């Protein structure tokens, strides 16, 4: 099966297929034989090149958190994004999805549904831990799909609103 993940600035296409004794992982022209033993719903032992590694994972909204050797790696599932038509990248196909920079309370929304918005306009303010963060439009467009109002709690994964580029 094919997978595509974005980690930091890199995007990687891989395939992972069952083999006689586990799996074969292919990246480009390289192949690695793996086997895995499940520990619990979030943990398994992955064995490759004669070495066992305990790995912990958690999946949420198109992201996979992977804990390996004391470090956490955040994978963004590119194929799942394409399937759902969205992306966590800020501007895709002329649409900016405005996300909270941190989980917090929406203090103010400065635009209304259908407003014309110029690039650089302040569109909303999110407050967390007594700090206010002003979020700006990154393109000229129309404000749409405003899903929250002042006072609502927002997380970093659900768009507050969208700016759709003018035709």
């Amino acid at each position, binding site marked *: *099966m094919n*997978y595509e*993940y974005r*980690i*930091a600035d*890199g995007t*990687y296409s*891989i395939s992972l297929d069952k*083999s*006689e*004794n*586990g*799996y074969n*992982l292919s*990246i*480009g022209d*390289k*192949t*690695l*034989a*793996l*086997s*895995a*033993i*499940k520990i619990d*719903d*979030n943990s*398994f032992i*992955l064995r*490759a*090149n*004669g070495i066992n590694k305990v*790995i*912990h*994972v*958690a*999946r*949420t909204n198109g992201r*996979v*958190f*992977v*804990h*390996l*050797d*004391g*470090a*956490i*790696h955040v*994978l963004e*599932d590119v194929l799942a994004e394409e399937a759902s038509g969205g992306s966590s990248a800020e501007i895709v196909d002329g649409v900016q999805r405005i996300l909270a*920079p*941190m*989980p*917090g309370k929406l203090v103010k929304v400065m635009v209304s549904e259908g407003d014309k918005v110029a690039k650089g306009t302040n569109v909303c303010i999110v407050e*967390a*831990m007594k*700090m206010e963060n002003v979020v700006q439009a990154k393109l000229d467009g129309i404000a749409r799909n405003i899903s929250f109002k002042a006072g609502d*709690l927002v*997380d*970093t994964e659900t768009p507050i609103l969208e700016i759709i580029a003018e035709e």
Partner: protein
Amino acid sequence: MADAMFNKILIANRGEIACRIIHACKEIGIPSVVVYSEADSKALHVLNADDAVCIGPPEPMQSYLAIDKVIAAAKETGCCAIHPGYGFLAENHQFAQKCKDAGLVFIGSSPESIRVMGNKVEARQMMIAAGVPVIPGMQASAKDVKLFASEADKVGYPVLLKAAAGGGGKGMRVVEKQDDLAAALEGAQREAKSAFGDDSVYLEKYIENPRHIEFQVFGDSHGNAVHLFERECSIQRRHQKIVEETPSVALTPEIRAAMGKAAVKVVKSCDYSSAGTVEFLLDKNGNYYFLEMNTRIQVEHPITEAVVGVDLVVEQIKVAAGAHLSFNQDDLRQVGHAIECRVYAEDAANNFLPAAGTVHYLKEPSGPGIRVDSGIYSGAEVSVYYDPILSKLIAWGPTREAARKRMLKALSEYVVLGVTTQIDYLRDVLSHKEFIEGRTYTNFIPTHMADWKQRGTSDDSLPLVLAAGALSGQLSRNTASVFGEAAQPTPWETVGKWEIGMGS
């Protein structure tokens, strides 16, 4: 009196410290009740306590800081004492007084000793009277630049100008020489005025690159007072401690004994009767100066417990019930070394912005000498309303280096998925050459960690990380213990050879 004990205790706090106090209550067989806000209905302290009372909306002013609601909850549930933890109402002398008025025992010191120590000017004057060294400088604020100049000559440059109403570095100026004094004073007054609405400024000697050394102290209501040695808390990020240890490598037995004696003097001078902490600055010549006294159980109390072998929270409860201290000074020894790391929900790679969300998976480390004081669990929500501390990791070892290695191993096995923490940052602090060699001064973080960057995914780990991502979707669906076809006990067959360093 020694056998008198509370029938039930209310804990007026949340998070890891509330859980710590519940733990102590369970150990000595006292039922515990917690209060909680609407944001905390599934918080760990609520799940762990014997009873819980919701006292209001998430905002602290309407819940954890609402004195009348807390006291009413204690009365309603038949508690006869309140433990305030740290933060929130812990150092509020009016709260301590209201508990008393309501017939409840406040597990802490008297309202008067909390009040005096909460007032910086009064506390300083009391310490001068008691013969405890304080940072040399003005006794009160002034306006006339001539007064500042003569005081600066007396204590010697460099000097520090400080806003009387201050905090957080606002209205503070370091002055190296007399020529700069007048301009710096004007600047400090202007800044103090705009930050606090009060342009009062005073002057004290500037202690260059000090260490932050504090002494754990304990008094009881029978006039006994002891110290339980020091904790070094020099590793601070914007005045917030993140790593603490004991003993401090900077103290000789002579300085330790002298500081301990001074700390006990502080306890006696205010008739202090509970656990408290006396904070000092230690300069590079071994001079120490009283900073302030914290009249509460301290976040970093577990490292003292690990090295001295006492339970400070249990002792607080017993002393509040009227017992004599269960140890005297001669009973107390430091054995081995302990380090604490505070785990915060914040993003070290992004200016330490607070993080929140769901802890999708949690696995806490364990092993010889490891203790975790935690306020979270797998599935817990970390909200934006409160201090972002999630837990504390404590490592004890026979030596500093043994404790440090245990800490590093434990940090690498501490798994928090879903909410960003600074565990990787802590690992780099503990691995830093200057930390290893014990050169821990209060400027450690700005000096050595300013250009810290999160390590990316290495070429070696990349294939495993990608494979883990691909396999992650099958984990919850797959009930068999082994993935793939290999159901036999020997699934370990390697086909072909993986080459390290594949290009991207």
